[in-house]
């Protein structure tokens, strides 16, 4: 699969418009962590976290055609117009990822950040998050009790957003949770 149905690139091709024009009509940017920990195969289907997340994001884009932009991040953020997060397996530079989407802050686009770990620099990440007008909702992939969970809660609180936990064994409900956040 190299183009998800309902992704920005797919819709742009179908409508014979540019990616920029299609992007104008999105409801949300999904910022998804693709650091090395997403290779863990601790989901209920024994697939990696990345593979399950990819399926769930594909479902979401298919159900909301042209409404969701996918940006993956690990050491660097990367816009994925084809709807498929680039699995870089790097570090977790969340601060850089937030800086990257800042250009879309304050124009009615929702931000949902999905991560299973702590960022390289908590301080930098929170400093940048503080500058956002738009709320940042977060989905933590992992156990409720881990420290990464606390950090994402803090990040959402800082911006007035919602933070939820998605246990790895129930990662196939990710799309459902994303829909709930989008409708919140």
């Amino acid at each position, binding site marked *: 699969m190299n183009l998800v149905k309902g992704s920005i*690139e797919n819709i*742009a*091709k179908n409508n*014979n*418009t*540019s*990616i*920029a*024009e*299609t*992007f*104008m009509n999105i409801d949300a940017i999904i910022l998804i962590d693709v650091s090395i920990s997403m290779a863990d195969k601790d989901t209920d289907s024994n697939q990696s976290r990345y593979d399950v997340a990819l399926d769930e994001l594909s479902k979401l884009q298919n159900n909301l055609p042209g409404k969701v*932009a996918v*940006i993956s991040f690990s050491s660097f953020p*990367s*816009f*994925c*117009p084809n709807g498929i997060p680039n699995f870089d397996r790097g570090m977790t530079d969340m601060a850089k990822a937030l800086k990257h989407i800042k*250009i*879309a802050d*304050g*124009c*009615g*686009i929702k931000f949902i950040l999905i991560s299973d770990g702590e960022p390289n620099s908590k301080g930098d990440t929170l400093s940048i998050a503080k500058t956002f007008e738009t709320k940042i909702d977060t989905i933590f992939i992992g156990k409720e009790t881990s420290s990464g969970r606390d950090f994402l809660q803090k990040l959402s609180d800082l911006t007035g957003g919602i933070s939820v936990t998605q246990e790895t064994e129930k990662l196939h409900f990710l799309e459902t949770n994303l829909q709930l956040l989008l409708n919140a």
Partner: protein
Amino acid sequence: MIICRNKQKNLFGENITQNNDIKINTDEFGLQIKTPYSAKFLEDLKREIPYQFRMWDADLKIWRVANQFAEKACEIIELNYGYCPEIKINDSNSKFQSQTYLIEYIGRSKERDDSGESFSLGFCQNAWNIVFPEKALKEFFEGKADDQTVTTSQNNKLTFYQLLGIKQSCVQKDIKSAYRRMAKQWHPDVCSEPDARDRFENIKTAYQTLSEPIMRKRYNAGLMFEKEANKTNKKQSKLSTTYGYAPPLRCGLITIDGEYSVGKIIVSKIHAWDDWQKDGKTAVASWDTLQNEISIKWV
């Protein structure tokens, strides 16, 4: 001062004597070359000397070559004919700055030699004698190369900024005046360009989007991400539609830096582009494909 010498020798090591069929004169802009016909010579000339520095003079049946390529031209003549007359060329300062020309029509750009560069020709003083490099046109309308937005390779659509002929960094109040200017120039009732109707509709969409600050912000974000995706996927491409790059304006009083070269003016920079006006009306120039000529209408 450049001197070209005959370097050829015959089998006995003697200098080859004059070939009266080859004549080279010089004027302030360069060489005037008359040779017997040779397909190989033409091929070499066109390959080695960029388009904007050579010209076939159909009236005199000579090739004109700019001074800076005189030595190269002599080499090509020697290679093909075994002989090149001795000539003396006076270096002249052919460059100029900030001169204004009335251009009645600028065509679409296309590659005219193997350099990979594209040029548009401008019609001025009854001749197609002003050469606009595509990069000079884009720099004027879109800003420096790094600032230029690029179209996606998937459908080569112009950006909203390109459609309105404005830079992405322009202030909000400039958008309306740009829209009025472009709408006048591309209205299908007065513009005969083949894509006028589509372009006119796209200009309206561009204005509706960019005149709303929130939508403009969304669009700018989309452009940034699209540019990033194109770089990553190495999809960045020159704008190449079926017709070639068409500047958003096709006529006007244009102030340029440039240089004179073999009966042409080569533009290096555009400073200003004002409407061509007469008796309170503005000229709209387009290419009438039925008549195969420039059509000027006054609105």
